[in-house]
């Protein structure tokens, strides 16, 4: 009886500790978002989004940074998505499961954990200097693509692994080739997981600052990029720049830009969740 009561007590204690920890995390998030909203919400209007940067805080807008982020996002997607998914398919379906494959797997997982500034240095050396792309949208996108490639590969592999092998067997047994099985069965079945992984990786890319600063993205660009070789800024760099200014008006601007950036990542994560649920339903 005594023992039972002890176990009960432990159970209760752990439950309340768990609730406490959850609430701490949530409260901090709410305080942070509330603070940002109070500082920046009133600053957001159409002009804030469409104005070019200026020396005067009340005339400054995020147009160039927002467009820079969108350009970067677009090119990062078209570079990292096909490469990462193809590599994931290769590693999961084509490569033999031997020691070399095991080594590759460990290294890709490790790459996912390399600090982003290291990728920035790599991008600076390879894309900006050796390939002579300059501090362009293309160089920035390539750098961020390298950064999220391991995440996309790992997500693709996990999604493909989750496809029941019975489905593959059935396809092969009907005379389908490997590629037909991948195209007609494996990709449709794992598409939700792959897309979710890719979108989450991109939402990380959109918030990255360090590697782009190293590559040479500018804090002040007078115009939005018009082609991939143009110079650019992105939202996080714009925020970083405004926060370091002494005038109070720029702090407000930074808060407002943070709201826009948060909104973008929330929307992207929302899309990821939507795809995941939609695919799961199809498989029930």
């Amino acid at each position, binding site marked *: 009886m005594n023992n039972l009561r002890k176990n009960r007590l432990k159970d209760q204690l752990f439950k309340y500790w768990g609730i406490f920890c959850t609430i701490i995390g949530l409260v901090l998030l709410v305080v942070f978002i509330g603070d940002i909203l109070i500082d920046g919400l009133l600053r957001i209007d159409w002009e804030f989004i469409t104005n070019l940067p200026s020396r005067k805080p009340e005339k400054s807008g995020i147009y160039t940074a927002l467009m820079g982020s969108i350009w970067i996002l677009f090119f990062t997607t078209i570079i990292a998505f096909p490469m990462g998914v193809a590599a994931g398919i290769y590693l999961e379906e084509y490569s033999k499961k031997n020691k070399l494959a095991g080594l590759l797997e460990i290294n890709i997982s490790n790459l996912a954990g390399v600090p982003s500034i290291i990728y920035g240095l790599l991008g600076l050396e390879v894309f900006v200097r050796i390939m002579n792309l300059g501090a362009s949208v293309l160089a920035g996108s390539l750098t961020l693509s390298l950064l999220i490639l391991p995440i996309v590969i790992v997500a693709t592999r996990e999604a493909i692994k989750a496809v029941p092998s*019975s489905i593959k067997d059935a396809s092969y*047994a009907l005379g389908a080739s490997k590629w037909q099985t991948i195209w007609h069965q494996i990709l449709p079945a794992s598409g939700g997981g792959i897309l979710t992984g890719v979108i989450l990786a991109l939402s990380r890319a959109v918030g990255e600052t360090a590697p782009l600063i190293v590559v040479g993205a500018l804090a002040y660009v007078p115009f939005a990029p018009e082609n991939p070789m143009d110079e650019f800024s992105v939202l996080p760099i714009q925020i970083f720049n405004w926060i370091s200014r002494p005038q109070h008006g720029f702090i407000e601007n930074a808060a407002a830009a943070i709201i826009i950036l948060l909104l973008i990542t929330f929307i992207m994560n929302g899309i990821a969740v939507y795809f995941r649920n939609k695919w799961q339903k199809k498989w029930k």
Partner: protein
Amino acid sequence: MAEEVEIIMEKPIKEPTILDSVIDPSLKKKPKIEVTGSKVWYGDFQAIKGIDMTIKTNSVTAFIGPSGCGKSTFLRLFNRMNDYVDTFRMEGKIKIDGKNIYKKKVNVEELRKEVGMVFQKPNPFPKSIFDNVAYGLKIQGIKDKKFIDERVEKALRQADLWDEVKDNLKKSGLALSGGQQQRLCIARTLAVEPSIILMDEPTSALDPISTAKIEQLIFELKKKYTIVIVTHNMQQASRISDYTAFFYIGELIEFNKTKTIFTNPEKKQTENYITGRFG
């Protein structure tokens, strides 16, 4: 794929084994599958230790034996499904309609159109009933809508499923009951019009009524197809098969007419197994 699998073949064949002599001579008349000296390894583990066997056209052959005895591995040799196991290695010869299916130039996809397979757990694709049955045809590049419609209907009728699903062909295959799903998988296999159907414990996940339906189906299909079925159910083997092969730890212990195996087995081991004394 096929090229990556290390296969050792075309070894000189030993003199006929004792088994051939006990096999009913009628087997020799219309051989569909002829296996000589087959040995299989997964890495260092030898799963099949040298088996010869002849399977007759339009017959039902049952493979029985305790779990891990190699009967499923042996079955999967006939449509080369073991090729996907990285460590798989095989020696010996398997001829279907007189052609060695483990020759380098053999097109595995073509082989599998000739040798269909039904699996242990019903595994319909997460697609509509129609698309499930049409899949095998579509991957062959067949686009003729009318032809596909006819084949799908024919296959579903052969699998005794047509009347139950004809009004819901667009419904997901996963929405069917377990027994219906397995018949859908059989229909999917039939649509490609193979001449051999391999069944790997096709009723082990089904209730008795669904099982009876599948057994009835096998009885019907025998007229047109050569069927090889792995089963753990002795009664099933004795009910539906013409020939029965008893496997034990990678070896073929006894292979004969089902009637003989179940009434007057030659080996003590076989008798012990079918009477339930071990296994």
